[in-house]
């Protein structure tokens, strides 16, 4: 059986592109390809990953320029047809700027870049990205961002809740969700959300950095594995 092709978009300034390629390549039967920002060709990819980093330098606002790139036009269209899209960190920011997800990410509560291990828990395990997780199990997955403070107006948050679109929340080692376990000030401790159709997920934590025990955790692997099993 031919390998499933998964596209990893490379914007100028992406810096988790190689990391994401590395994580994807560790799964049997999956072939990652790099999708250049200036191209319109998705190269037959069955799923798209938007990696972390600083697309176009992010001097204006994270992800604000990337959404105008030729490849994103194709990604948005494909997502509309149901193509699975996973945006990690800067990729999440790009998804929000592109309108594939609702809300916005502003500067962290304490105005500083923050890189550390965080605990998150999947609160919706029925998505194509989380089917291999147990509801409310505690995952150790790191964050590294300056603009990860998720915000949406109350009516949007209510709608996200109503439609089970909140997928990950920051918590402590025991799964407790509190202000102290919220690293960046995100409303409702939101770490990741999915679109209404369920095929577009954005999250701030980096599953590709938690895909090998050697790096401290492999809790992120099942996110990729959940997705790849659907393809």
């Amino acid at each position, binding site marked *: 059986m031919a390998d499933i092709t998964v596209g990893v978009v490379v914007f100028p300034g992406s*810096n988790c592109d190689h990391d994401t390629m590395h994580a994807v390549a560790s799964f049997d039967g999956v072939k990652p390809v790099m999708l250049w920002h200036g191209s319109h060709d998705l190269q037959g990819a069955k799923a798209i990953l938007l990696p972390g980093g600083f697309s176009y330098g992010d001097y204006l606002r994270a992800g604000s320029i990337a959404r105008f790139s030729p490849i994103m036009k194709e990604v948005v269209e494909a997502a509309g047809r149901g193509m699975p899209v996973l945006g990690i960190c800067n990729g999440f920011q790009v998804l929000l700027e592109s309108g594939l997800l609702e809300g916005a990410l502003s500067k962290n509560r304490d*105005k500083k870049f923050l890189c550390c291990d965080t605990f998150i828990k999947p609160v919706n395990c029925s998505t194509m990205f989380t089917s291999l997780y147990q509801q409310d199990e505690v995952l150790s997955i790191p964050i*590294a961002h300056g603009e990860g403070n998720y915000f949406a107006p109350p009516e949007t948050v209510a709608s996200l809740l109503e439609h089970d679109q909140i997928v990950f929340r920051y918590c402590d080692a025991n799964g407790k969700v509190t202000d102290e376990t919220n690293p960046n000030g995100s409303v409702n401790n939101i770490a990741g959300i999915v679109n209404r159709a369920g095929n577009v997920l954005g999250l701030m934590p980096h599953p590709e950095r938690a895909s090998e025990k050697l790096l401290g955790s492999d809790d992120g692997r099942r996110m990729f594995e959940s997705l790849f099993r659907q393809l």
Partner: protein
Amino acid sequence: MKQTEPEVTLALAKEHGLNEDEYGKILDILGRTPTFTELGIFSVMWSEHCSYKNSIAVLKTLPRDGGALLTGAGEENAGLVDIGDNLAVAFKIESHNHPSAVEPYQGAATGVGGIHRDIFTMGARPVASLNSLRFGSPKDPRVRYLVDGVVRGIGDYGNSFGVPTVGGEIYFEDCYTGNPLVNAMSVGLVEHHKTVSATAEGEGNPVLIVGSSTGRDGIHGATFASEDLSEASEDKRPSVQVGDPFAEKLLLEATLEAIETGFVAGLQDMGAAGITSSTSEMSARGIEKNGTGGIMIDLDLVPAREEGMSAYEIMLSESQERMLIVAKKGHEEDIIAVYRKWDVQAVTVGRVTSDNNVKIQYRGELVADIPAESLVLGGGAPVYIREAVESKPDTPAAEMTPDSGLNLKDRAIALLSRPNIASKRWVYRQYDSMVQTNTVTPVGHTDAAVIRIKGTKKALAMKTDCNSRYVYLNPLAGGKIAVAECARNIACSGARPLAITNCLNFGNPYKPEVYFQFKTSVQGMGEACRAFNTPVTGGNVSFYNESTHGGGRAAIYPTPTIGMIGLLEDIDNLVGSTFTTSGDAIILFGDPDLNLEGSEYQVIQYGTPGTDAPDINLDHEKNLQDLLVALAGKKLLHSAHDVSDGGLFVALAEKAIMNETARLGFDVDLEDCGAGPYRMQQQLFSEAQGRVVATIAPASAKAVIAEAVACNVPVRVIGKVVPQGAAIAVDGHDTLRFSTAELSRAYYDALENELHLNELL
């Protein structure tokens, strides 16, 4: 249009920092009066920063080859060390002290950018970044501004550029108040056949400028770095360059891709002194190698950021994110195409010649025509050996209080909360330490940072270190200890020390006592490197770190920072520094005489560092390193952590609490401690060298002790790991008890509290 340029005279040369002899030498070399542009070129190339004129004679005494070195110090932009599997490590540390003193954010950011360029111009992909920082007391509001700016600058540049910042050190001492130190280190990996030399060769080969356009920023940055800081230094803010990590990220990717084409004949970063240093140094290397060479540049072709720049300004600009490439003739378009793909400018501006000169044309005129070798270190640049006179610090010996008169538990907690000892979490969390997914353990869980090498079983261990207080008290011992501590840390992680780079931060070398510190600490460093077989691959000298802030002129503590690389042949043999298993035996390697000389404890308790550095025995250190590597190879160690700042108490506390999600406690009884009135203070807080606290399974004790005896390293069991709580007894009594939470609070909250950071927001 012809611009009027100042007439070149001795007075003007002096304004450029050249002395009368040096100006005379320029007249001799050229056989005529230099043009204004030529004067600018000589002044930057012969500045301390570029020529190492006051340091090179001393640096040549260091062991600069042997071991696994592929290129010796000074031969290329950075040192290159073989690690097998057709791979080499390129690494270097460099200072950006003066820019950071006046503009901390950009100064630190461009320091990081500059050192990474040195690495990737050799064809190596930067895989890790480290730093070494010194500031004045955090109680000073300006110091807090500097700390905040420097940390954000390092973070923002490295985070965006996509290289993990995996290690570093930060100390606070009053002597750095007006003159902080910002030393940045980059480590890169390259396959042997992809390395590129910073040499201009092949007559007629085209010379290209790639990267950012040239502007008026940073003109005379190199000269600025070669003089004392003063109140007037604020006016030199325009001498500080502005960094653009996004531009550099594109430059990195495009450059590594361009090298893949096989059409890059030579490559050098434009750091200090921009086009001037890159053209003259690349030419000189070509001439040295082939007998002939040289470069001709037409400045009209150089992309400029603004109109009306003079030749002088273009030649001396230190605009960031630029490089000089020598392409193989006929293939410049292949290279330009790669850069175009990455939206990076690449323009042919000249060619390699054979008349041995650097020739600069502008607006149809020859504005500079200088023999390349006359400009560079090892060629015509001046070399001075300055007068060295020892001047012992007049710090008093401590007037000790007996143990019985002190609340030692209280003292221990106070020590753990000192900014120099306490957790640097506030700092390192602002750095992306994980990007590239090679960082094996979280920051602080190993004594040296460890980066695995994908596709192999290998990993690199790396560390920066210098206890400048020791160097101040005893330059010879302090120089040795800086190297020994790095090596001990590398060995604690299970890796074998390979080589060092150094960043030598000192005061004004024209002061005999400063030159003595410089010369003597380099001697100590050299002795240690020889003893450990860790040659010096290169580095950087930063003189004139003296400041007039806060009254009289004060020199900094002499600070020869070491950056060391080690190799872990098998990642499975990695050893962490924190307790792993309750019930493990805690053992102590090394049994030196204990005193409090130079210790952090003595400074806070008695207000004086004392009169000498701790003793250092290089033979013992080497034995200890060999032992640690051997035990790691046999998988006998569960953890290893060296005893350094704060002494044994701090080492034990760190082992207990540094892994924030898996804290454990300890129960330790130190035996045979004698009967002196200060024995508790000495046992707990002495910074005597050559000691490592390790943990092992009790069943391994026999094997570990046998191995230690074979390596001639004293060893004893001092206690065991317990689920929680900490207790230290001396000869079975005088027990100090702490809860793990109490230790954590003291250790983790102190720096943030001290910096009062909320005041800044």
